[in-house]
């Protein structure tokens, strides 16, 4: 079984997000990148399949130079192949464009499964998985909590999350694109020295394709949510704040 995993670099939302002068994008110099959390889960799920069934895992790192570091981490964790797909700053978060870059190499790669996170924090234009699947004319199912080989060749069984904690069990014929919400186990940790070691011997195949400039979704303005409507902030040290909260609870009959 051959599995491809899409690993996108996205702005780290724990850091401050600085809006650029154009008022509609992030300031490129201030963005701190991180691997899209759910893509990390997709990688873990692929590595679980490798552990169980000996799958060959190819990691596709998307974004700027940070993507190369993510590829080193992926290989240190157990990926067998690293492919770098550079994406210009202005195109990041544009899943339609990304799918155009990825469609041909993924088709040619002869993968049974293509895994990605079901969503990324920087996207608004529909999930990457569905777009890719449609371009490749293969099925897509997202929101997955687990993937395993089904009984019967050429099929996988997936667990899809539905509202209210329900889980739908489906069989999907491969090749297919799968959108991961959570891997069956938490993404594995890999020590820094192992990543550094992987970096030294890392062989990265780079794919550069040119895709037409499609006019997709046009963001006209980015802004921080309006302040004032939110919480009243409690100031002071632990003692002051804890007293304030305890008193608020008492006033409301919650103690």
């Amino acid at each position, binding site marked *: 079984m051959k599995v491809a995993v899409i690993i996108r670099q996205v702005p780290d939302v724990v850091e401050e997000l600085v809006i650029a002068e154009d008022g509609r994008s992030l300031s490129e110099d201030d963005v701190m990148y991180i691997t899209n959390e759910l893509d990390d889960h997709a990688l873990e799920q692929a590595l679980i399949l490798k552990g169980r069934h000996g799958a060959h895992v190819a990691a596709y790192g998307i974004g700027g130079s940070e993507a190369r570091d993510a590829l080193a981490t992926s290989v240190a964790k157990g990926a067998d192949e690293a492919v770098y797909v550079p994406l210009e700053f202005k195109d990041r978060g544009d899943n339609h464009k990304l799918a155009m870059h990825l469609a041909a190499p993924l088709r040619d790669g002869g993968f049974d499964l293509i895994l990605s996170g079901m969503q990324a*924090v920087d996207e608004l234009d*529909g999930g990457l998985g569905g777009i890719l699947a449609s371009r490749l004319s293969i099925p897509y199912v997202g929101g997955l909590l687990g993937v395993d080989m089904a009984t019967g060749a050429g099929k996988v069984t997936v667990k899809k999350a*539905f509202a209210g904690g329900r889980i*739908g069990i489906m069989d999907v014929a491969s090749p297919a694109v799968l959108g991961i919400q959570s891997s069956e186990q938490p993404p594995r940790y890999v020590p820094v020295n192992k990543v550094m070691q992987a970096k030294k011997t890392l062989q990265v195949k780079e794919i550069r394709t040119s895709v037409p400039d499609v006019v997709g979704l046009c963001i006209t303005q980015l802004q*921080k949510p309006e302040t004032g409507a939110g919480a009243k902030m409690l100031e002071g040290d632990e003692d002051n704040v804890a007293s304030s909260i305890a008193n608020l609870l008492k006033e409301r009959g919650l*103690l």
Partner: protein
Amino acid sequence: MSPDTIVVIAEHLKGELSDITLEMLACGRELANASGSELICMVLTDDPLPFKALPFASDKTIIVKNPVLGTFNPEAYCKVLSHMLREMSPRIALMGSTSVGMDLAGMLSVTLGATVVGNCTRIQIEGRKLLVTSKLYGGKLTARSEVDQGMVLCLLMTGSYSKEGGMKNEISQIDIRDSPLSLDGLRTQFRELVEPEEGDVDLTKVPVLVGAGRGVQGADNVRVLEELAGLLGGAVCATRPVVDQGWLPRTRQVGRSGVIVKPRLYLAFGISGAPEHVEGMKDSEFIVAVNTDSGAPIFEVAHYGSTLDLQDLAPVLAEKIKELKGGK
């Protein structure tokens, strides 16, 4: 059909309409009224019975039936919707920003050549222009976007419109049809729907919930929060990343793919306030949030907040609560 049609793709599970459907109908009604468009609700199902006598706010409800459409199958839905939406050519198709709508949007945008706008909280029409407000970057920023031509697929976030607006006093015109195309030979087969395991606590019935987010950083801190919850006669619940880490069982997950809760008190510790969690707890009566990031979106829905480190604050808070309870 009029190019100004607005279509709502209904979501349902086990014969029950999901709340998001009514919210989408409320949003669609507002847009239809503002633009003089026709509002159509589309229900894909194996059994029209539970849906044919509901007082939807739509002008017309089209029920498409086929045995395969009983439970959501992304391939089957995509096939039927690609065909029907291409024929109807609506201006806007509303879907939920849910595990159903998010599966469909990407696929349909390619098959229909439509623009997708995700995470929508507000949609307006100005002349030919569609103005959409969405949450981006985990809810940390708000994005406004414009689409002035073509079909637009909007994914509406739960809680953005009131579900009351999705109903009216009469039953709308109903049109029941068979699937316009064969659904044999699909590569995706739905096998079964598994109900959630019963947890030790019914989170929807507990008066006080202490929510643990990624900021708790480990199972040890979850125990501190458990003590706090115990003092308040409540229980600990969690965001998805905390459950993913195995610090709490999945039965304690609150949010889009967990439980929707409305306790009297929700104490949020180390929770950033990603939209998928906020959907599940924002209607709590009283919310106090603790997060070191002053820009965390949780502070938008909280009534009170603190940016102190939860590891410092939680034990002191437990002591203060003990003192106050002892002094009753």
